[in-house]
């Protein structure tokens, strides 16, 4: 068998090539080889992750669509469903941050409206290297502007997300985009072709050479010359996508559509192969009819182009004319490419000539699957080095420490970022970004929809199983804090090179941890995405399994905010603070140590704490509820004082049986800070007592200073107005900007 | 026939993008940069029209759509015709 000499460039192994020849019973044509290369890439085939992903719970009473479609769907009552998914666009964003991030948003939105759902919210989870690392402020600025540029133009609000910095992302940033849409639950569309002779239709932008082998690129590590891969980056056109969105939703109100899929990674190849394979049919398409932006494109290029804003549809035979009419109304190009066939083959013609003929399932279900070797970390891994309190000196000025934490890159205000996103378009946004979870009202109902995205990658690095379980628990806790019940999640699993056994071990453990937490909290995984090869020059990123979770509440007006609202209210800490400094922000920022085990997680207790908080919010007894996470109680208290529309001071006492810095900065899990009237807090205390959850009154809200006492002495005494100014201006300084007139408070 | 259209902000109209570009250039060590004015450059492919006529038509295009004459100036260059300004 003559082996092509460009196999490595195609990202295929010799063994995989042999498999292709066995499937086809002949050598592949160049076009076919490219199609296999795209579809069998890690990005499209999940070949290293599939065996592990099967361990995640995907079933539940509310699940209408689990993994395997363009997005997952959950029943939220009133005959409505939410459709949501998260996806990575890490590699393109590192090369060209604006377009990489913009097209990431565009791609995830298409996954949502392909299902017939109108997108109503976007969130983004971003990981950058140290702000002072080369190109980093350029990357931050470009990514944020790109997300805004796309989402703002198409008119879908970016309602939440998170941004964190760590040196492990210096050479490989993470850009994960989440989108959610709403649809009548009996009007969900799927990408399952059927009906021999039904027409196959192409709609949207013309096809150019952009993005060719983007799927393969996302499946390869950056060498040191990674920045030279520029030609493969796609350019987004949010205006065309807006037209495509409106046209598709208009079309979906008719009964013409049989199947529809967006042309994402591996372009026309993946959309045609996946629609055919899911429906157990074949497709015959003539790529001579594909609208082109450039002359002289080869069949290979047309089949693998990742030009944006394109869709492939199967419609009912005889409906071509009214379908074309709708797309023409919206000024979109539309072409009839071919027909559904009964032979199970994806047949690609270029005019008269056949350029590819492959069993559709060979490209999808029959892609290779690998059980890659795993290896546990070495004995001296930082996660195995326990933190001994005797090695950590207690700082004298804890007020100064708290100030430094609150203004540190990972904890300072994200206003610089969120103000570049339109978060209020579509008029559903009940809580602006910045709280524990985003909260939207659902027009036509009383319901509220909450969403949050979380992952503490430092914890996942120290203990991937525990860290990933925490990501699930924290996302759920954030939803519970606004008063919503978690109903489902999507994930974006960002890891290093799967050919490194240590990375595969992290992946395997993270899945185990997520699965365990999902089962205990009864939250199904309905969609997701894996991004491997996040490494530069052999250096893998910290495992970063991002979790985006969606919750529902019956009455959106009964919600809690995350900041203090009323002087005189009592502050209650629900949950228990233990000596758990391992992997904490305090240890990293103040003591330059990243070591130890992350805090323990008792999932039974976690569930009970969340139930108590949700019930309190539902009864209207909780005026504010704030999850304790990075920076522990100290940072949470400061945030409660300074992040609301009005400033509040507070007078508080810490428990004496822990060292003051531990009581303030330990990141013990399953804790929530609540404020409410004395009477309401009394109710919550008895709830906690009857359900075996420790809780503790810390003090009262009021005044202009945050005062915290420990063992009889005043350890923190800060002016909250000054603290807010320092907190709110810190991000602009990180990216090298000074705050000018009119951009201040 | 190819025509080129340059659209720039009128002098006296604040050009925040130009200011940022100038500042960045100076920060990169190009201290000789005094000021930058940025604008738009368009290449328009025409057919079936003589150069002089094309110039007139392009002038109309600029007045009507390509430039906002409240804040912008334009300049047109047509192969084989005299250069024109707003």
């Amino acid at each position, binding site marked *: 068998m003559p082996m092509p000499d460009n196999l490595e460039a195609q990202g295929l192994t010799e063994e995989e090539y042999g498999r292709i020849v066995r499937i086809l019973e002949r050598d592949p044509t160049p076009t076919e080889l490219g199609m296999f290369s795209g579809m069998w890439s890690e990005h499209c085939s999940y070949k290293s992750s599939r065996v592990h992903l099967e361990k995640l719970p995907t079933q539940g009473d509310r699940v209408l669509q689990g993994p395997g479609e363009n997005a997952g769907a959950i029943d939220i009552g009133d005959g409505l469903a939410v459709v949501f998914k998260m996806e990575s666009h890490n590699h393109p964003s590192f090369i060209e941050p604006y377009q990489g991030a913009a097209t990431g948003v565009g791609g995830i939105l298409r996954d949502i409206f392909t299902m017939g759902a109108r997108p109503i919210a976007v969130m983004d989870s971003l990981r950058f290297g140290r702000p002072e690392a080369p190109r980093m402020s350029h990357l931050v600025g470009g990514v944020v*502007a790109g997300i*805004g*540029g796309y989402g*703002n*133009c*198409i*008119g879908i609000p970016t309602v939440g997300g998170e941004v964190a910095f760590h040196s492990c992302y210096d050479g490989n940033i993470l850009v994960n985009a989440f989108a959610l849409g709403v649809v009548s639950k009996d009007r969900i569309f799927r990408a399952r072709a059927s009906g021999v002779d039904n027409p196959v239709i192409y709609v949207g932008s013309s096809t150019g050479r952009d993005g060719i082998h983007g799927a393969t690129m996302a499946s390869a590590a950056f060498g040191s010359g990674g920045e030279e891969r520029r030609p493969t980056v796609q350019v987004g*056109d*949010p*205006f*065309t996508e*807006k*037209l495509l969105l409106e046209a598709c939703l208009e079309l979906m109100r008719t009964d013409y559509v049989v199947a529809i899929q967006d042309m994402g990674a591996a372009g026309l190849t993946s959309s045609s192969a996946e629609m055919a394979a899911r429906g157990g049919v074949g497709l015959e398409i003539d790529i001579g009819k594909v609208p082109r932006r450039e002359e002289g494109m080869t069949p290979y290029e047309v089949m693998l182009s990742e030009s944006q804003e394109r869709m492939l549809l199967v419609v009912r035979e005889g409906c071509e004319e009214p379908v074309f009419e709708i797309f023409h109304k*919206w*000024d979109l190009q539309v072409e009839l490419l071919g027909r559904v066939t009964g032979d199970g083959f994806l047949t690609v013609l270029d005019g008269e000539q056949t350029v590819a003929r492959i069993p559709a399932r060979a490209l999808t279900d029959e892609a290779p699957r690998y059980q890659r070797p795993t290896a546990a970390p070495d004995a001296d891994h930082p996660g195995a080095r326990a933190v001994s309190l005797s090695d950590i000196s207690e700082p004298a000025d804890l007020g100064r420490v708290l100030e430094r934490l609150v203004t540190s890159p990972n904890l300072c205000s994200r206003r610089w970022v*969120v*103000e*570049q*996103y*339109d*978060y*209020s*378009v*579509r*008029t559903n*946004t*009940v*809580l602006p970004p910045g709280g524990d979870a985003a909260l939207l*009202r659902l*027009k036509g109902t009383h319901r509220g929809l909450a969403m949050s995205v979380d992952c503490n990658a430092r914890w996942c690095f120290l203990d991937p199983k525990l860290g990933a379980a925490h990501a699930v628990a924290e996302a759920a806790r954030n939803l519970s804090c606004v008063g919503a019940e978690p109903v489902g999640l999507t994930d974006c699993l960002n890891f290093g090179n799967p050919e490194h056994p240590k990375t595969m071990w992290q992946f395997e453990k993270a899945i185990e941890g997520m699965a365990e937490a999902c089962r205990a909290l009864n939250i199904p995984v309905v969609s997701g995405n894996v991004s491997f090869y996040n490494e530069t020059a052999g250096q893998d990123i910290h495992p970063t399994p991002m979790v985006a979770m969606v919750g529902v509440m019956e009455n*959106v*007006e009964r919600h809690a905010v995350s900041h203090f609202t009323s002087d005189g209210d009592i502050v209650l800490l629900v949950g228990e603070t233990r000596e758990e400094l391992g992997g904490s922000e305090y240890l990293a920022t103040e003591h330059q140590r990243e070591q130890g085990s992350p805090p323990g997680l008792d999932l039974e207790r976690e569930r009970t704490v969340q139930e108590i908080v949700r019930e309190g919010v539902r009864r209207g007894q909780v005026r504010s509820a704030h999850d304790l996470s990075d920076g522990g109680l100290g940072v949470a208290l400061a945030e409660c004082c300074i992040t609301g529309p009005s400033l509040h001071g507070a007078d508080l006492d810490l428990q004496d049986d822990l060292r003051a810095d531990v009581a303030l900065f330990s990141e013990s899990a399953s804790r929530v800070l609540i404020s409410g009237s004395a009477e309401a807090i009394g109710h919550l205390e008895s709830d906690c007592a009857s359900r075996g959850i420790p809780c503790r009154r810390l003090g009262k809200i009021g005044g202009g200073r945050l005062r915290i006492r420990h063992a009889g002495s005043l350890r923190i005494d800060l002016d909250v107005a000054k603290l807010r100014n320092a907190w709110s201006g810190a991000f602009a300084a990180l990216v090298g900007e000074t705050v*000018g*007139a*009119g*951009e*201040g408070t | 026939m190819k025509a080129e259209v340059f659209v720039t*902000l009128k002098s006296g*109209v*604040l050009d*925040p*993008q130009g200011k*940022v570009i100038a500042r960045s250039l100076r920060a990169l060590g190009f201290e000789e940069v005094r000021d930058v004015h940025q604008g738009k450059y368009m290449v328009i492919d025409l057919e079936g029209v003589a150069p002089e006529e094309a110039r007139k038509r392009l002038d109309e295009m600029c007045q009507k*759509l*390509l430039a*906002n004459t*409240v*804040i912008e100036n334009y300049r047109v260059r047509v192969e084989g015709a005299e250069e024109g300004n707003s």
Partner: protein
Amino acid sequence: MKFAVVVFPGSNCDHDVYYVLKKVLNQGTIFVWHQSTDLCGADAVILPGGFSYGDYLRSGAVARFSPIMKAVEAFARKGGLVLGICNGLQILLESGLLPGAMLRNRSLKFVCREVGLRVENAETPFTRCLRVGDRLRIPVAHADGNYTADEETLRRLEGEGQIVLRYCDEEGRTVPESNPNGSARNIAGICNAQRNVLGMMPHPERCSEVVLGNDSGRAIFSSMIESLAQAAH
């Protein structure tokens, strides 16, 4: 009353303003497609926010040539009420129904935030439910809101009471610190000399319901409804 909300390709606040007029304020409201040439007997016209034609070339530059704009111009010349919000204001400027032009925000960045607005003229059909000096909080969300005009035009706007809304701080002072985009004289909204065409950058439709935490934008729509009701008698 019948409100017409014009839909351009790329409009994205059309549903928002429709929802407020129809569902919150119970007014007859229709969408009018940009290719249409008549306003179907509407009593008032809204040009909604968004990115008509992607804001390519300049914000509002292409939309002003949509067929419906001829009808809107004729309607405005006859004294009909026209409200342009955000991209709607940009279209009104490009079409010459209001004077001046928009530049990129001084920060060069898109800005989405709730801002303070001071009512400068309460004798317009859009502000009659308000008083001069009232302070509203309304969100802005735009990249091109840096209003500019030559000195003479600005003086005329000022002299004729055509500056209807200005950005202000919490005390109602129209200081530079309260200006989110660098607009001349802190201008957030202007009307024509006849007072029947108002363009404003902030989005009153995003703050017209208590459930969204702020209903101070409602006064703009209530004023329009009151004006129309009075004209009908």
